[in-house]
């Protein structure tokens, strides 16, 4: 088969790009251990409290190391449950020091919800029956809004919380 010289150039470029993307994907998945936020970890959506992380007292911000935090969030229409403060009022804002390693662990007890910390790479889908997890380092101080980006019903737009990353 005869091919024009230019055709050979762009076929090589196209094939090369495909190979480059597949190799990057392979390194990410098999060497660096990247995985989707919801990766086969299941939970009973009717009884999420049975899971240690989603017990009433464990919801919200938990410090697990010197500069390491775990945030447990239970989403439901139309609220992110981040636990209660000392006065028994629901927590709507959590504060994390800049540079801390944070693991967001979330699930939903009803329908599919979104979990996007706008302006950061934290963005995942919460599906009933699965636990979604995202580990990140909050390097940039600022106020970030946690929003639901999967339409979940009439109160969808009321579903948000705030994460403040402060400089120590």
């Amino acid at each position, binding site marked *: 088969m*005869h091919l*024009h010289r*230019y*055709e050979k*150039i*762009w076929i090589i*470029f196209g094939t090369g*790009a495909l190979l480059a993307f597949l190799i990057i994907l392979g390194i990410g998945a098999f060497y660096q251990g990247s995985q989707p936020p919801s990766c086969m970890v299941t939970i009973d959506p009717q009884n999420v409290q049975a899971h240690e992380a989603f017990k009433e007292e464990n919801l919200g911000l938990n410090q697990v190391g010197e500069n390491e935090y775990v945030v447990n969030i239970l989403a439901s229409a139309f609220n992110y449950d981040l636990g209660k403060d000392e006065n028994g009022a629901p927590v709507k804002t959590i504060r994390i020091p800049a540079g801390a390693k944070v693991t967001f662990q979330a699930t939903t007890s009803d329908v599919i919800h979104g979990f996007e910390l706008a*302006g*950061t*790479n934290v963005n995942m889908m919460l599906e009933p029956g699965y636990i979604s997890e995202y580990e990140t380092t909050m390097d*940039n101080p600022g106020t970030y809004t946690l929003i639901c980006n999967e339409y979940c019903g009439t109160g969808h737009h009321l579903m948000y919380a705030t994460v403040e990353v402060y400089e120590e």
Partner: protein
Amino acid sequence: MYMAKQTGKTSNSAHEPNLKGTMVAVMFVAAFLIISWFGVWGIFIAR
């Protein structure tokens, strides 16, 4: 191909079509892909 059939000749370099413009267009697409890929990657790394 139509021309080659008509004259009864098989295609050879003398009758090769001029693909210079196509080459330039393809390279524009390539540049767009590369720039946007690195742009998105930069955003991912920065935040």
